[in-house]
């Protein structure tokens, strides 16, 4: 059996996961779980989603070998190009799956949280495509630093609410989206943007991102003799990482999930419960959730999806952290050496590769380029002057 099997009936991966939600949402989570289970084993649904991923999102995404950077670093560097998907990141894989499922369940409205705005844009896009209404919650801090994506969501017909509570970033946007869901649970589907939250989300979102790992595995097989030596992805909630890990978890490849130094849930957290799940969580001595600090809005999250906590606890994946300064260097490096402007989130993965390259000489390193950097150009303009 794969290490990434279905979670237990209670939605646990080892001792992580579960369903810690207000009573109001328990029936909704149960209903969603049943609907997903049924749809995921229905060839009609799977085919419909595959068609959308191919004809609308542009899958499969290509694999690009970075000859310049590879030579510079003394490794063979492969990029899984999720940045080339429609809407510019991996987020569309999950969103098309959830929106299709929501429609099948008879829901007419989506709510979503967003950090960098990529999940919000993807949700707004799917809502426009499928004729659903959509409201996106975004921390006020992020509304400011990702203004372009805010405008994109509005263009697509979604309402965007700037969340003023708490740290005014991703974690507070999740709280507000959950409050909305509690109040409107009948007609609304909560389109959660990562492998986090209450069961069945961590499992369902992983399944919708499996396509990344499946494609990458086949592409690596065609290019190499076996799996790559190392598979690297950035980790906010952990969806792009779980997607690519899923293709290699049962191989010998090292799996590396890179967290921002200011949001290192696995690295610095202890198990806690927030947003419906038990997982590693940055918190103070009284269990108050701490505010993450990262240059990248999409990784500015004090928790992590429960399956990552599990993969860490059994030693199958490693979760190092990189600093904002290292990320900025990596961002510039990829632009200059390869002609690819990465999302700041994805630049975390490269930052780790650059730092660790001396210990990986001659190895094949596969990195998930989870998104493109258009949304970050304005912010970088300010930082770089």
């Amino acid at each position: 059996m794969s290490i990434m099997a279905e979670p237990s009936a209670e939605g646990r991966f080892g001792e992580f996961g579960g369903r810690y939600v207000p009573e109001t949402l328990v029936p909704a989570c149960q209903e969603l779980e049943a609907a997903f289970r049924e749809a995921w084993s229905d060839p009609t649904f799977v085919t419909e989603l595959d068609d959308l991923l191919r004809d609308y999102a542009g899958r499969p995404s290509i694999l690009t070998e970075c000859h310049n950077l590879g030579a510079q670093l003394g490794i063979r560097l492969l990029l899984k190009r999720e940045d080339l998907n429609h809407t510019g990141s991996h987020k569309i894989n999950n969103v098309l799956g959830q929106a299709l499922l929501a429609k099948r369940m008879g829901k007419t409205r989506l709510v979503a949280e967003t950090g960098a705005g990529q999940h919000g844009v993807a949700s707004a896009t799917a809502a426009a495509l499928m004729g659903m209404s959509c409201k996106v919650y975004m921390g006020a801090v992020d509304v400011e630093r990702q203004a372009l994506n805010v405008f994109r969501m509005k263009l697509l017909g979604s309402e965007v609410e700037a969340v003023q509570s708490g740290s005014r970033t991703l974690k507070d946007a999740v709280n507000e989206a959950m409050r909305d869901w509690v109040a409107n649970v009948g007609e609304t589907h909560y389109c959660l943007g990562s492998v986090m939250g209450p069961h069945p989300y961590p499992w369902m979102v992983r399944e919708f991102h499996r396509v990344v790992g499946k494609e990458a595995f086949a592409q690596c097989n065609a290019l190499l003799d076996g799996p790559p030596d190392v598979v690297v992805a950035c980790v906010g909630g952990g969806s792009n990482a779980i997607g690519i890990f899923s293709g290699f978890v049962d191989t010998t490849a090292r799996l590396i999930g890179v967290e921002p130094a200011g949001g290192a849930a696995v690295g610095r957290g202890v198990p806690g419960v927030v947003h419906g799940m038990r997982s590693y969580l940055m918190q103070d001595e009284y269990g108050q959730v701490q505010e993450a600090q990262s240059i990248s809005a999409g990784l500015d999250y004090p928790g992590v999806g429960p399956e990552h906590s599990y993969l860490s606890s059994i030693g199958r994946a490693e979760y190092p952290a990189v600093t904002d300064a290292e990320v900025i260097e990596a961002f510039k490096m990829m632009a200059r050496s390869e002609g690819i402007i990465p999302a700041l989130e994805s630049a975390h993965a490269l930052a780790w590769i650059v730092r660790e390259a001396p210990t990986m000489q001659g190895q094949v390193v596969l990195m998930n380029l989870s998104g493109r950097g258009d949304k970050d150009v304005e912010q970088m303009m300010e930082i770089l002057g």
Partner: protein
Amino acid sequence: MSASTPTSTDFGTMETQFRAKRAAGRKLLVPYVTGGLEGWQQAIRAAADNGADAIEIGLPFSDPVMDGPVIQEASQRALDAGININIIFDQVRELDVEIPLAVMCYYNTIHHAGHERFAHLLDAAGIVAAIVPDLPLEESGPWCTAADAEGIETVMLAAPTAPDERLPRIAARARGFVYSVGLLGVTGERTSLAASATSLAGRLKAITDVPVLVGVGVSNAEQAREACLIADGVIQGASVVKRLMDHGPEAVGDYVAEVRAAITF
């Protein structure tokens, strides 16, 4: 009755009192006060002096998903003032009010402290019950085991979305009372009592003799009266906290007296 329902000899302090008061024809009134908010101890004393049957003390949490803007702000103010559970429990010991005290806290506060340790901390502070709004039935086992062992009554919440088969299981696990969630939504004041408030209370009353109290969205004396036509009592949250923040502890006393009068039939 299911195996986990306590017999009359081992009801906890709060449930014993609530059942006796109900038998005497009294409706139960439980005001909510955010622990650590300026004037909170005086507000609790004022509530106790003006007809409250128990107090629900909110333990401020960074991520209160079941709370609307008023209680969110109260929590944030208390946290910004440096409040933590040690300070709150110390100050609870100084309260010396006669009525039972309960805490309302998010599960991570318990999880982080440790189940047994947290139950012990409550008991040591003289708190008899706990309400944990993000701990549904399926996840409640470890906490309930620790709470039962320490004699802490765990109030279970029931929501309007619950199918019929779920309600008896919730009631069987409830100690103290069943918290009948008044509407689909988070805490906060509403202009009218949602129809779901009385319909869920009615569904619960039909299947359990554990006291049924309506909370969330019971925003004034008139709405409390309406809820008490069906339910055994009400929890008043945002309307109490708002008065404390805007007008101070005496306003809480006046308000509790007003609600008490309205629910005295």
